[in-house]
Structure formats: structure tokens, C-alpha cells
């Protein structure tokens, strides 16, 4: 039961951190809670589907189906997070200035809301499918296995959700002046971390070279499976022994999103009288 709790905690922690940051980053968006919950639901349904199709997915693309699928999901999430940040750098100030939610709803439009749903759904899908498979593998072991696994899994899920909520609550205490700058930075780091993870899958499938495996080793300083290491892995994509190509993907995502944000903001500033 403890194994189930620990592993489900780790998986759900990653998704919970993403949801916590997205919930904070979309503060003030009309009815965003509804979209987040819809995203969680869609992700959970998707996770069950993916888990049951794992054999099929694995056999695709000469056995690299899993890696392509995971990398695809991660890179799609990176694109969505980039879109969110770029959108915010144009509309953010407008949104913060609008006092009532009806006005904000008009500004933000359907596309911003679908991004929230998509990012949350993709995160839950990724971590959820691993969790479903894991519980299935563990549960079919012994007769009492099922109950112990589900209970442990439930505890792990609750603990992960709690950490995500604490992150959200903590972020909300940041003064409004700095608030969106902080969530913006967190979203960029989240995206960069996901790009790095996508790179790992592409290297595993031999679609890109590793460029040094590992490029450096900081596991003596901060182990990736320590509590802080896990938190940093989920928040900023910390890896103790990253491959060179992971660093390239990380920096590329970082630079591209920042460039996009600055470029779009500069252009829209130029248009204001």
C-alpha cells in the first residue's frame, strides 16, 4: 500500500503542480474553475483510454510509438503554454484593469479558455495513464492487492493534490503588482521543463542525438528523487543528469517563448496611442 501511495503521489504531484500554476496564472479569467475541472475530467478519461491502448501505442512507428506519443503530448503542452504567455503579454494588462468578469470574459474569449482546458487535460492524461497502468500492475498481484493499491493510490493522489493546492494558495498571496510576472515566469519554466522531457523521449527513440549523456551530474548536490528534487523537477524541469539535447530543448523553448512575448508586447505597445 505504501508503494502505491508513494508512486501515485509522485505522478499526481507533477500534474497537480501544473494545475496549481495554471489556476494561478488564469486568475480573474471568467469561470476558469469550470474549465479546469473539465480538463481534469477529460484528462482522466483520456488516461484510462491510453492505459488500455498501451500495447497498440507501443507497437506504432516500429516500436517508438510510446516515445512519439509522450513527446507529442509534451510538445503540444509547450505550445499551449507559449500561447498562453504570449496572449497574456498582450491582454494581461487589459484583463487586470477590467473590474467585472463579464468584461473580462469578452476580452479573453473562447480560445484562452480552451488553452486552460487543454493544458490541464494533457497533464492529467500523461500522469494519469502511468498511474492507471501502475495500479493495474500492482493490483492484480494478490487477492488483497486491489484494495490496498486503491487505498494507497487514493492517499497518494490526495497528497499530490494537496501540494498543488498549497502552491496555488501560496501564489495567490503574491501582491497583485508582481503576481502575473511571477506566474508568467513559472509558466515559461514549466514549458521549458516539458520541452526537456520531450527531448528525453526523442533521444530514447533515437530520433535526436543525446549530445552528452549526461552532460553533467548534480545528483550529489540535489538528488532528483529527493523531495526538493521532485518539486524542482515538476516546477522547473530539474534533472540531475540531463542529456545535452535536453538542455538544448530547454533553452530553445525558454528563448522562443520569451522572444515571442517581448515581440508581441512591443508591437501592441507601439499600437497604443
Amino acid at each position: 500500500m505504501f508503494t502505491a501511495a508513494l508512486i501515485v503521489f509522485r505522478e499526481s504531484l507533477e500534474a497537480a503542480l501544473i494545475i496549481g500554476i495554471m489556476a494561478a496564472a488564469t486568475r480573474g479569467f471568467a469561470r476558469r474553475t469550470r474549465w479546469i475541472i473539465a480538463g481534469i475530467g477529460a484528462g482522466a478519461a483520456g488516461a484510462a483510454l491510453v492505459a488500455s491502448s498501451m500495447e497498440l501505442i507501443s507497437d506504432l512507428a516500429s516500436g517508438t510509438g510510446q516515445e512519439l506519443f509522450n513527446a507529442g503530448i509534451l510538445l503540444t503542452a509547450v505550445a499551449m503554454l507559449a500561447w498562453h504567455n504570449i496572449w497574456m503579454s498582450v491582454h494581461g494588462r487589459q484583463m487586470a484593469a477590467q473590474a467585472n468578469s463579464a468584461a473580462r470574459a469578452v476580452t479573453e474569449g473562447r480560445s484562452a479558455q480552451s488553452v486552460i482546458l487543454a493544458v490541464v487535460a494533457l497533464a492529467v492524461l500523461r500522469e494519469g495513464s502511468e498511474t492507471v497502468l501502475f495500479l493495474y500492475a500492482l493490483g492484480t498481484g494478490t487477492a488483497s492487492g486491489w484494495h490496498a493499491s486503491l487505498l494507497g493510490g487514493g492517499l497518494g493522489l490526495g497528497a499530490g493534490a494537496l501540494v498543488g493546492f498549497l502552491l496555488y494558495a501560496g501564489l495567490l498571496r503574491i501582491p497583485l503588482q508582481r503576481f502575473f510576472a511571477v506566474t508568467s515566469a513559472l509558466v515559461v519554466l514549466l514549458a521549458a521543463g516539458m520541452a526537456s522531457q520531450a527531448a528525453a523521449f526523442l533521444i530514447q527513440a533515437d530520433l535526436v542525438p543525446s549530445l552528452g549523456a549526461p552532460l553533467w551530474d548534480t545528483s550529489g548536490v540535489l538528488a532528483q528523487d529527493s523531495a526538493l528534487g521532485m518539486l524542482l523537477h515538476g516546477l522547473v524541469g530539474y534533472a540531475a543528469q540531463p542529456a545535452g539535447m535536453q538542455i538544448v530543448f530547454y533553452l530553445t523553448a525558454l528563448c522562443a517563448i520569451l522572444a515571442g512575448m517581448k515581440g508581441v508586447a512591443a508591437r501592441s505597445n507601439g499600437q497604443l496611442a
Partner: protein
Amino acid sequence: MLHVRPLLLKLPAALLATLALNASLAVATEEYTLTIKDHAFDKQELVVPAGQKITLLVINKDATPAEFESKPLNREKVIPGNAQATLHIGPLRPGRYGFVEEYHEKEAAAQGTIIAQ
């Protein structure tokens, strides 16, 4: 600001060039095998040559899915029951790289080390 942006765009361009180069190279790699049976690996230690790309074949002889994971190697792959999966590893620097069968990772038999030398 104006001269930062061209630099920021050169990075993705360099990335694409690397991808194109890699696609044109196709090298046969040595294959090593690990077998999972009763949630345990058949070898606790796997010695591989350092500095070379390697193909790792993991065979799952259990009916339930298993997940091969190695944080030091940044590798993870689910292997459905009674199936096998291939992962590419390396070129590795000499050293020891731990791996686990994640669904049973606390059990000693579900842990192992790849030794690159």
C-alpha cells in the same frame, strides 16, 4: 533588444540543423537484453561499453505491464504484459547508472545497474 532576437532565433535553427544531420546518420548498434519475470530483472548488473550508442531490449515475461525506468539515464518506457520494448541509450560516460522496474521499484530484485566502462 533588437539584436537579442536574432540570437534567440538562431538557437532553434541550430537545433533543426542537428536534427537533419542526425537523420542522415544510421549506425548499427549493439543490443543488450534484460528480462523481467515475476517483477524481477534477470540481471542486477549489465556491463556495456562506454562512449557507444546501445540498444536495450527489455522483455516482459509477466502478464502484467512493467515500466523500465532510469532517472540517471532519463529513460522510461512501459512494457505491456508478454511484450518487449526497445530503448536507445548512450553514448554513455563511464559510470554506474541505476534502473528499476518502476511498478515494483522498492523490491531489490526489481532494481539494477548499468555499468558503462
